């Protein structure tokens, strides 16, 4: 197998007593689109900065194209295009001037630089705003200009930190499509960080779940789901008008059903997880026992659930019980309400 284009070995970063990144191991191969997923403050940006050699790791090393990023940052920065999460431009200069400046800094010959900047702006769909000042740009336009700015040096790897933050849904779609095209047509390796699961799901070959400085899991979405829900891969939520006050008996009866592994009961809903899909049996059971079923929801495993599950585990460790139940109630009602 060829050498990974990004290798991270035991990367650790401490800020005082805070462990921003904790013993991270990761390998990303050429041509992949890798999504780094995690809540705010999980250490995603810190990891990216260490990949570029902009922040010194406390321990461990990051290698890009086989070169240590903290020892030889100039070489790495030639290979990697980085778009920060809050991308900014010189407001007094036009889009073209901004891009030409970056092109010159990257040593593009003076004769070509203007033409190349123009082509890049066309590629990201900013050809109409060529001579507009960057200060007048909307957020979405700035993101596009940021992408052009990353692409002008023709990098092998592009790293995007929260690229979809603050753009409207249509803009997000276009933007992600652009990234997908780049990946497919030019074989560029893409590493992007986000906390927007659905967006990442659309374009990533592989994702890593990053919480509290640790990579909890990585792989493609199916593998992640399979690993995570191995014990009870199927889950059904049944909503009824009213459950009895004493739930112990009901719980016993449900657990007695074939293949049921886990039952969680709340005021008017029951969550049943099992090894096989027995939704019809469960519904029949509820109907026979005289409960008024108002809704049945089979669960499919998207990134949301995966994320939730990992996030859940993490929360349980950190936050007191009371708080976390409150959080889950809210997030669950929100989710079911949507569907």
């Amino acid at each position, binding site marked *: 197998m060829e050498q990974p284009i990004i290798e991270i070995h035991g990367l650790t970063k401490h800020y005082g007593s805070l462990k921003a990144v904790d013993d991270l191991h990761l390998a990303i191969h050429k041509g992949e689109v890798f999504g780094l997923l995690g809540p705010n403050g999980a250490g995603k*940006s810190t990891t990216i*900065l260490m990949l*570029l050699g*902009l*922040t*010194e790791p406390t321990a461990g090393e990051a290698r890009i194209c086989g070169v240590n990023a903290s020892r030889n940052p*100039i*070489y790495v*920065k*030639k290979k990697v295009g*980085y778009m*920060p999460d*809050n*991308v*900014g*431009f*010189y*407001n*007094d200069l036009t889009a073209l001037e901004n891009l030409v*400046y*970056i092109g*010159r*800094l*990257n*040593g593009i*010959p*003076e*004769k070509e630089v203007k033409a190349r900047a123009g082509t890049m702006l066309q590629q990201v769909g900013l050809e109409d705003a060529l001579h507009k000042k960057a200060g007048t740009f909307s957020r979405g336009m700035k993101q596009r200009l*940021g992408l052009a*700015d990353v692409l002008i*040096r023709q990098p092998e790897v592009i790293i995007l930190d929260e690229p979809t933050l603050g753009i409207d849904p249509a803009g997000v779609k276009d933007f992600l499509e652009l990234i997908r095209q780049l990946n497919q047509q030019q074989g560029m390796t893409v590493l992007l960080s986000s906390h927007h699961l659905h967006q990442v799901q659309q374009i990533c070959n592989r994702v890593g779940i990053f919480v509290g400085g640790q990579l909890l899991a990585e792989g493609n979405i199916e593998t992640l789901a399979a690993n995570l829900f191995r014990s009870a891969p199927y889950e059904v939520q049944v909503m009824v008008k009213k459950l009895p006050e004493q739930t112990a008996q009901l719980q016993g009866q449900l657990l007695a059903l074939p293949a049921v592994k886990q039952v969680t009961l709340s005021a008017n809903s029951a969550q049943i997880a099992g090894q096989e899909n027995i939704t019809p049996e469960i519904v029949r059971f509820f109907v026979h026992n005289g409960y008024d079923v108002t809704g049945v929801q089979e669960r499919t495993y998207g990134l949301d659930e995966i994320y939730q599950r990992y996030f859940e585990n993490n929360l349980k460790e950190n936050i007191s019980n009371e708080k976390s139940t409150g959080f889950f109630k809210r997030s669950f009602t929100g989710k079911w309400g949507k569907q």
Partner: protein
Amino acid sequence: MKSQPAFLKGLLPANGESNNASPFSVMVRKEVADQVRSWRFIILAGLILVTFLGSLYVSLTNIGRAVTNPQDPDSLFLYLKLLTITDGSLPPFHVFIGFLGPLLGIALGFDAINSEQSNGTLIRLVAQPIYRDSLLNAKFTASLIVVSILFFSLSLLMIGGGLITTGVKMEPSEFIRIMCFTALSVIYIAFWLNLSILLSVKFRQTATSALTAIAIWLFFTVFYQILLRIVVSAFLPDPGTLSQEQVASYNGAIITIMRLVPSQLYTDATTTLLMPSVRSLGPLTMEQMAGAIPSPLSIRESLLVVWPQVSGLIAATVVCFALSYYLFMRREIRT
């Protein structure tokens, strides 16, 4: 006023004309362009130009009287006279620069790093394949280039104007003195420039760094002398009870403390350079003065007299630069 930036713009491409310019020269070129187009530079350069023309006008109208004064050993140095004489209505140009120079330096540097950071351009810049220190170097070099061009062109303008109006031949020593004075002014402004760059690295808000720089400048130009006077009058014993040597040593100590101020160093050095008859910047005893003929010093000797002042200014500049280097090189650049 309008002609100044236009004149400078023509000179710009000389910095980065080569086909594959190094990142450093690209940055210098961009920074120079930014500075020259910025309103604050146009305003301050205009202000300096106006004071320059004003003081030149005053000295030209009084030049006839000054050069015919037989009491003055410097009366033969026409062009130095142009820079220094006044009839009291306006201070001479070098005094103006002692006052306005720091403002120019502060204006060019106070937002060097922190405005990039708050705009989000800093992180994008350092993610380019450049060394981090070239950013700092480029900012400093660019402002220095702008200031040097401004001051050298003013000096040459003055010399040219003097040549046309008086028609008097210029002595080489005068030319060298004027160029040294100009270089000294640039060094003096470079100190304030570096101080303000240091503050822009230190403080995240541009307003904080600008106000701090101005506060330091105000303290040194106004309050330091007042404070020193109060302290001296409180601690110094009655001069009547002291011996000659004691008075001299107290005097020396006070002058040393005065010279901690960059503007004092600048004033001392310019006075010596522009008035060749100034022999010493401290008090002289009667024995030292005995037998001295009131005649101008040679350039070499004037330069020897001001050398400590120049070294002091350069040292202060270097210290500020080193500090900003130290603060900037290893700091987290994320916003």
